[in-house]
């Protein structure tokens, strides 16, 4: 498929995963991502691959764990409450260093919340989420095309670093339709999966584990994991910047919030306000260096989220007190409008003028 076609985000990401070589999909229905298991139930058998609707999210993530341990490309998808149930399994995947892809099409929380788009799972996604000292790579696409493009990247990153990779989108990106192109870009050179459980035919046994009982062993395992995380932080940060060179206000947003910000920034520029934006694409590793660099020259940072303020903590850590960081967010399914973000930018401009 190299032509431009109109697809909804959930189906587009599913097709992109199939093109990326997905061997098996395990999932459980939850709104607003049901188009993914529905699409997979038809397409995976057509490709001679595995689709299974599981009895729960606990089962889904553990089927991912089992298939990943045999060296297969495998993924599950869910939405916020379902991802909470998967946290035990994600911690085990991280501990056993099993490559896997987990998609969270976020909805409003906490608890059952609602089925409208939200970004309230940022902390859970970027801090580990489950028990123990671990991180997962987190990708935060902001369009259907980017959702398509990030799936092969997610699988490659998972295989390269033997790590679970989370794709963190929200109900709008999952549900909206946009024209997309499925590019078959050159792939990374990946290490062999000589650790995988394939039956010990002619070799010594392989063991996949996360239990280390010998004194100091789990500490060493954690240090090894941290060394891997530092390498990922060094090599894999992705972010986009727009008209930040001369800007006096820099707006930071990811995912669908970034699309709203882009509209607001364009309008503000038409009004003569010097404003630009930075859009993190990898939420972990976070573009700390890029934001820190920008903070040297700019006066005010503004973070916009579909939450009460989660990523804003990372922005504050990145600017390290060098510049003020303002926040505007709408939680639990509330979506800021372009006009609301524009108003916030105008207010900051007025405040600057008052200061002067």
């Amino acid at each position: 498929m190299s032509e431009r076609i109109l697809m909804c985000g959930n189906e587009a990401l599913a097709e992109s995963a199939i093109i990326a070589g997905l061997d098996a999909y395990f999932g459980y229905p939850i709104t607003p991502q049901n188009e993914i298991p529905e699409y997979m139930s038809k397409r995976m058998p057509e490709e001679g691959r595995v689709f299974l609707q599981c009895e729960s999210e606990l089962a889904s993530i553990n089927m991912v764990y089992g298939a990943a341990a045999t060296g297969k490309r495998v993924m599950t998808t869910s939405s916020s409450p379902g991802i909470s149930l998967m946290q035990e399994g994600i911690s085990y995947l991280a501990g056993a260093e099993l490559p896997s892809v987990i998609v969270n099409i976020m909805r409003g929380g906490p608890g059952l919340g609602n089925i409208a788009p939200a970004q309230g799972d940022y902390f859970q996604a970027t801090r580990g989420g489950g028990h123990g000292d671990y991180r997962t790579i987190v990708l935060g696409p902001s369009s259907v095309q980017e959702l398509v493009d990030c799936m092969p990247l997610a699988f490659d990153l998972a295989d390269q670093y033997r790590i679970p990779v989370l794709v963190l989108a929200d109900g709008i990106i999952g549900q909206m339709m946009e024209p997309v192109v499925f590019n078959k870009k050159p792939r990374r050179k990946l290490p062999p999966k000589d650790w995988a459980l394939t039956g010990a035919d002619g070799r010594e046994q392989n063991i996949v584990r996360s239990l280390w009982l010998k004194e100091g062993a789990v500490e060493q395992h954690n240090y090894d994991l941290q060394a891997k995380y530092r390498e990922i932080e060094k090599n894999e940060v992705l972010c986009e910047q727009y008209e930040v060179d001369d800007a006096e206000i820099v707006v930071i947003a990811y995912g669908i919030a970034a699309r709203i910000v882009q509209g607001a920034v364009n309008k503000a520029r038409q009004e003569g306000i010097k404003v630009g934006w930075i859009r993190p694409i990898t939420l972990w590793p976070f573009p700390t260096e890029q934001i820190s660099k920008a903070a040297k020259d700019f006066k005010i940072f503004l973070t916009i989220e579909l939450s009460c303020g989660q990523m804003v903590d990372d922005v504050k850590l990145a600017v390290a007190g060098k510049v003020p960081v303002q926040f505007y967010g709408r939680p639990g399914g509330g979506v800021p409008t372009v006009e609301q973000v524009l108003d916030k930018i105008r207010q900051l401009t007025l405040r600057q003028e008052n200061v002067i």
Partner: protein
Amino acid sequence: MQKVFTKPQSLKDCTTHYCPGCGHGIAHRLIAETIDELGLRGRTIGIAPVGCAVLAYDYLDMDMIEVAHGRAPAVATGMKRTNPDKIIFSYQGDGDLAAIGTGEIIHAAHRGEQITVIFINNAVFGMTGGQMAPTTLLGQVTTTTPLGRDPLKQGYPLQVSELLAMLPGAIYIERCSLHKPALIRNAKKAVKHAFQLQADGAKGLSLVELLSPCPTAWRMTPTKAIEWMENEMIKIFPLGRLKG
């Protein structure tokens, strides 16, 4: 001199961490003998449970994985669905399979997953120090039933094999015991049959429940534990083939 009894190749030559009188060592040996005799080592993947047998891969010489408490049947499903040519077995205790993992074993059986489950039932949570399990007998004293299990407060012993035998997706269910040599020989036949079914591509789940002594958590001598199994445990968990 002719050698008449040797260690199976699939069993490592090492000392185990299991307590004196524990049944895990016997169960491991039955699995290792079976895999050797059926020539399956090269394509077998074993799943160790959370519990006393979490280190089973230190004793069984084959590809193995460690999984979260109770989730082994889901992990086995992920493995078998993506590797239909491999022999996948889970090794689970009663705390693992009959308590926290009840959902996973029921649904794996319900779907007819083509896996083999070795279910060790010692009527107690062994590794965590002897707390009540769903399989604990009425009146049995554990660290969380200090006055003995009372059905009105803690419910009745859960007969998992009987429950699973009702499901069409389970094709072979047998309960055996490890407390007498003759019964151990029967258990070997059952374990071998369960693996043979999978190797033959039989369409469904096979499970062998092995009643196993736990003298430490039962606060008994190994000899007394054997007597208790003979006199009490097999009354509640009768031996024999339940299905297939």
